[in-house]
C-alpha cells in the first residue's frame, strides 16, 4: 500500500475520527439515494456500502462481477464474494455487465481509485515509470476502469493525497478524465461527464468549469489548505469560496465502524 500521512484525528463535540474515516464519509455523502453506482473494491465499496446504510438506502450497488443491486450485510473483500451474488437483484454474465449495462450509459456514478491522478483527472493504474516495457512499478492494470470512466454518467475518484499520487501528468493514461483540457471528452466521443469529484483524506477537488483543471473546493475540518497544495504535484488552484466539509456525524461513524469491524 502506498504510504500516506499518518491519520490525523479530528475532535468533534461528540467523538473523534481519523482522516481516513473523513474521506470515506465524504465519499459516501456524494452518492445520492436511488443512484445506480458502479463500485470498485476497497474504499469505493466501503463508501458505497456506508451510503446505503445511512442516507441512501435505495442506492443500487453494481459490481463488475455482474452483481446488480447487491445488498451485502458485510463488506466484501473482492468484487465477486458470494455475499454479493446472494443478495443481488440480478447476477449477469461479465460481457453483459459491460455491454448492456455500462456501455449504453445506464449507470449514474462510477467510483474509482487511482495510483496516480493528474490535474485533468486522468487516472493511472497501469505502470509507474517512464517505460511501459520496463516499469519501475507494475500495477494491476485497467480492469473495468477505462470504460467506467468513459461511460458512467459521472465519476467520483477516491485517492489519498500525496505528491506521488497527484502528479502533473500521469505516467500512463489508463482511464481518461478530461484528457488535456476542455473539449477533449467530446472530441474523443466519451459519453459520460467525467470525474466530478476527487475525494482525498485532506479535502475535495472538483474540475474548474472553465479550464477542467482539478481545483481544491473543500478542505476537511482542521486541514490547512496549504497542506493540500503541498501534497499536490502541480500548482493546485484553490477555489475563492473554499468550503469546509462537515465533520462525520455520530451515526455515520457508528455505521462505518460497524462495517469495518465486520470485514
Amino acid at each position, binding site marked *: 500500500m502506498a504510504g500516506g500521512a499518518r491519520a490525523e484525528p479530528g475532535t468533534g463535540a461528540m467523538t473523534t475520527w481519523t482522516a481516513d474515516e473523513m474521506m470515506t464519509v465524504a465519499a459516501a455523502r456524494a452518492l445520492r439515494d436511488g443512484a445506480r453506482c458502479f463500485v470498485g473494491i*476497497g474504499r469505493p465499496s466501503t463508501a458505497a456500502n456506508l451510503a446505503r446504510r445511512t442516507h441512501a438506502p435505495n442506492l443500487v450497488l453494481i459490481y463488475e462481477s455482474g452483481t446488480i443491486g447487491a445488498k451485502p450485510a458485510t463488506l466484501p473483500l473482492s468484487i465477486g464474494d458470494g455475499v454479493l451474488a446472494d443478495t443481488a437483484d440480478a447476477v449477469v454474465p*461479465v460481457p453483459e455487465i459491460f*455491454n448492456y449495462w455500462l456501455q449504453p450509459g445506464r449507470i449514474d456514478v462510477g467510483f474509482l481509485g487511482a495510483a496516480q491522478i493528474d490535474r485533468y483527472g486522468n487516472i493511472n493504474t497501469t505502470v509507474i515509470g517512464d517505460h511501459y516495457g520496463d516499469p519501475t512499478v*507494475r500495477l494491476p492494470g*485497467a480492469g*473495468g476502469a*477505462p470504460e467506467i470512466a468513459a461511460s458512467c454518467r459521472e465519476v467520483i475518484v477516491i485517492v489519498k493525497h500525496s505528491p506521488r499520487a497527484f502528479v502533473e501528468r500521469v505516467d500512463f493514461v489508463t482511464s481518461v478524465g478530461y484528457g488535456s483540457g476542455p473539449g*477533449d471528452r467530446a472530441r474523443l466521443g466519451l459519453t459520460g461527464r467525467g470525474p466530478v469529484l476527487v475525494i482525498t483524506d485532506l479535502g475535495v477537488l472538483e474540475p474548474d468549469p472553465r479550464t477542467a483543471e482539478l481545483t481544491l473546493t473543500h478542505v476537511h475540518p482542521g486541514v490547512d489548505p496549504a497542506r493540500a497544495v503541498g501534497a499536490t504535484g502541480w500548482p493546485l488552484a484553490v477555489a475563492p469560496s473554499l468550503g469546509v466539509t462537515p465533520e462525520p456525524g455520530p451515526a455515520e461513524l457508528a455505521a462505518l465502524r460497524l462495517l469495518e469491524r465486520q470485514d
Partner: protein
Amino acid sequence: MGVIASLPEAVTELVRDGATVALEGFTHLIPVAAGHEIIRQGRRDLTLVRMTPDIVYDQMIGAGCARKLVFSWAGNPGVGSLHRFRDAVQRGWPAPLEIEEHSHAGMANRYVAGASGLPFAVLRGYVGTDLPAHTATIKPITCPFTGEVLTAVPALNPDVGIVHAQRADRAGNVQLWGITGVHKEVVLASHRSLVTVEEVVDELDPRPGAVILPSWAVTYVAEVPGGAHPSYAMGYSERDNDYYQAWDAISRDREAFTAWLEEHVRSRVPAP
C-alpha cells in the same frame, strides 16, 4: 464430448508446451486445482489468458509455466499486487513475461467474438487511453452505417479453456450458477476444454439462473471437489479470504514462494 476423466489425464491430454491456455473465473469458480496440475506436469512456454489473473496465475508464472500473459487486471483482489507477476515483469524472474494488456470490456468482448465464430468484436472502449499505443490488438474501426469510429479487438480462441463448475452429470453435461463470469464464453471460444466440477451426479436438477454446457460442447470433465479453493463454488464452499491475505507475504519472497510451491503443489499427488 464431455468425457469424464481424472484431472491428471485431462491435463496431460489437453495442455502441451507452448499452448495458449485460458483458466477463467471471475473471483468465483476459478479452476485452481487444474492450474496446480499444469505446474506439476511441468508445462512451459504457455500463453496464459485471463481477465483477472490472480493467485493461481501468480503461482503458474512463478513456477515458470508462462511465456506470455494476455489479461486485463492482474492483482490479488482486495489485497494488493501479485508479487510473482511483478517480479516476472520487472525483473524477468523466473523468466521474462511478455504481456498483452486490455481492459475488462475488451477481454470480455474478445471471448464473445471467439465464442461467436467472429474474427473480432466492436465496443466503445480504450479511446483516449495509452493502451492502444502499447497493445497491437486494439484498433479503431469505422461503423459502415453511421461512420462513427469505434474500437475493434480480435477474437480470443485459446487452444484450451479451463473452468470450474458446481456439477456435471454422468454424461458430462455441466451446470454452474452464481457469478458465471465468462465461463460459457471461454469454453465455447476454446478449441478444446476442461471443466472441473465439485461433484458428478446422476441428474442435474434445475437451478435458478444456471448455465448449462451440454456435454457435446465440452471436451473433458473431471471431478475435483474443492478444485476452486481458495476461490469458491456457490452452494459448496465459501471464498477463503484468509488465504488471499496470506498469499501476499508468501509470494513477496522468491525463497518463501519456492518452498510453498514445493510443499503445496509439486509434492502433492492428486487423487487419480
